[in-house]
């Protein structure tokens, strides 16, 4: 399986996927950590893929999204953006709306 096929399979078989440096439990970059905090706050389940474990994945996701930096968030197979975009969308309530529009379940808000 090519790296492109691997990425495509991941973003299509998981509702929410975060390509990041480190893991959701232990982010190894401040920008990845910010997105983890936002997703946890929103209460949505997601799969974290650590690009530091694979140069193929790190280069592959940049090419796949045509986006030069990590982290990268996908919802239902669609590229949402990096740290700045996710944060701005969260602050405007647009991220929560996007998840609702796409039918992604989130934990009941506190």
């Amino acid at each position, binding site marked *: 399986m090519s790296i492109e096929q691997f990425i495509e399979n991941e973003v299509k078989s998981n509702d929410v996927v975060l390509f990041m*440096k480190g893991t959701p439990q232990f982010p*190894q*970059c*401040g*920008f990845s950590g910010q997105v983890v905090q936002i997703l946890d706050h929103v209460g949505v389940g997601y799969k974290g893929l650590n690009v*530091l474990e694979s140069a193929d994945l790190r280069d592959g996701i940049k090419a796949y999204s*045509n*986006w*030069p*930096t990590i982290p990268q968030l996908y919802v239902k197979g669609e*590229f949402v*953006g*990096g*740290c*700045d*975009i996710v944060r*701005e*969308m969260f602050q405007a309530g647009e991220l929560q709306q996007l998840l609702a529009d796409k039918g992604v379940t989130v934990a009941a808000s506190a």
Partner: protein
Amino acid sequence: MWQIMSARDTITQKLHEAFGPESLDVVDESHLHEGHAGHKPGGETHFRVNIVSDAFAGKSRLDRHRMINATLAKELAGSVHALAIKANAPGEAG
């Protein structure tokens, strides 16, 4: 005397040429990331861009970032490790 442009100068110049911005602020934040992966001695690895331009009117957040990333593709493929972007059209809430 001839002087090598800093990465910050190069980024500023390219964004000026591409977008004719109403306002543009390029901040070298490399010193905030010392010891972090991607940081190099001498800095010039982490930048923050605040830009206001007519070119972004009617464009999505993704489109705005893609326009800037494309303009700075050479820098992002080279020494620049991280680029935080805030891109607005004139009149939008900052």
